[in-house]
């Protein structure tokens, strides 16, 4: 998609004028669907062409860690290894080698590369609440909820949610369920005796 042209989202007709950056919706000249299209200068920006790496010409010249025959142009800001133009991955103004970029993504070291998180607080809360519908499941799920809440208390939670209220609620509910089972057990034992 390297074109600077814009299509109607519905009929895919190429739009040339009329509907861009208008304050209100205007009909598509082809299909009549009301459209509002905000266009920004990035649409007309030329895409950068990838650089090709140069071969090492002089003996003793710094070479790429991954391609010893290629000239190094920059060190990786993660591990310090020398990189050729091909291995240099620029991200948010920083330069990384592919390995550091992958490590940063999988281990969450480069925050803006992280694209998934598990919500342990929601899992713990679900384990504490949902089995209440069939209450005897709570004999198993309440300790599980407590375990998940304690085990993952410090695990990174949602990027956009800020509190640990779900963990707290799960711990409180699970503790109450465990206490309830404990009291029941005690009551049954004493009744038999």
């Amino acid at each position: 998609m390297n074109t600077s042209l814009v299509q109607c989202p519905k009929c895919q007709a190429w739009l040339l004028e009329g509907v861009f950056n208008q304050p209100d919706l205007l009909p598509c000249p082809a299909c009549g669907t009301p459209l509002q299209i905000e266009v920004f200068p990035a649409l007309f920006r030329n895409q950068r062409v990838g650089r090709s790496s140069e071969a090492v010409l002089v003996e003793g010249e710094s070479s790429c860690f991954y391609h010893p025959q290629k000239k190094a142009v920059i060190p990786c800001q993660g591990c310090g290894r020398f990189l050729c133009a091909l291995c240099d991955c620029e991200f948010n103004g920083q330069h990384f080698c592919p390995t550091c970029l992958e490590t940063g993504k999988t281990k969450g070291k480069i925050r803006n590369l992280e694209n998934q998180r598990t919500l342990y607080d929601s899992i713990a809360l679900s384990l504490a609440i949902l089995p209440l519908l069939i209450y005897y499941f709570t004999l198993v799920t309440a300790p599980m909820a407590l375990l998940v809440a304690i085990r993952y208390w410090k695990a990174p939670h949602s990027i956009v949610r800020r509190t640990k209220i779900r963990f707290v609620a799960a711990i409180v509910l699970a503790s109450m369920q465990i206490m309830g089972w404990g009291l029941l057990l005690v009551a049954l034992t004493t009744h038999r005796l």
Partner: protein
Amino acid sequence: MAEKEYQRLTRARSRSEFAFAFVSRSSLWLGKDHLLCVSTNGYTETYKRFYFRDIQTISLQRTDRHLWWGAVLGFLAFIFFALTVAGVPKIPPAQWTGGQMAGGIFLGSVTGLFILLLFINFFYGPACKCFLRTAVQIEELPSLNRLRRAHKALARLRPLLVAAQGELTPEEISSRIRAAAGTPPETTPAMAPQAATSPPTTPHPPAPPPVIS
């Protein structure tokens, strides 16, 4: 604290039209230099970042979805209202049995629920689809599925995008698009309907190769 770097732009909305539970929901958040689209199924979250400097277009397309929902909800409300009225016994309320009263309350509640949903649907206003385009993707933003909400979000987004990229007037955009399309200004219509799936410069596909039998 790094965790507080996002401001909510829209609340989570379901990605599917007939979604009620256990489905992916999507919300939009504003970061310092990017828009964050968060999709969640309740137990995991998936993030997509759209950097302000990379956003090329944001398109809103009005749809009739709210009318269809209105029709469906109105129909269901009417059916349950009719059932409630038909189920009312012809005797004074003091002589109703427990079953008759429970049935009336149940049907009345269901009717009330559908009427409430109908009002909510019309309160939200016209529906729309919102697409965000970058150099490598066109992404639908499911949380901007109502026009009023989309306009509000756009009003917050626009200054940030302008600050990151600058601004273009409608005339500038048209002239640049015409230049990109290879179309001289003021000699062609606003668009070429016959070129629905190809750029304006190549309105007709090349002829297929001859078949040799």
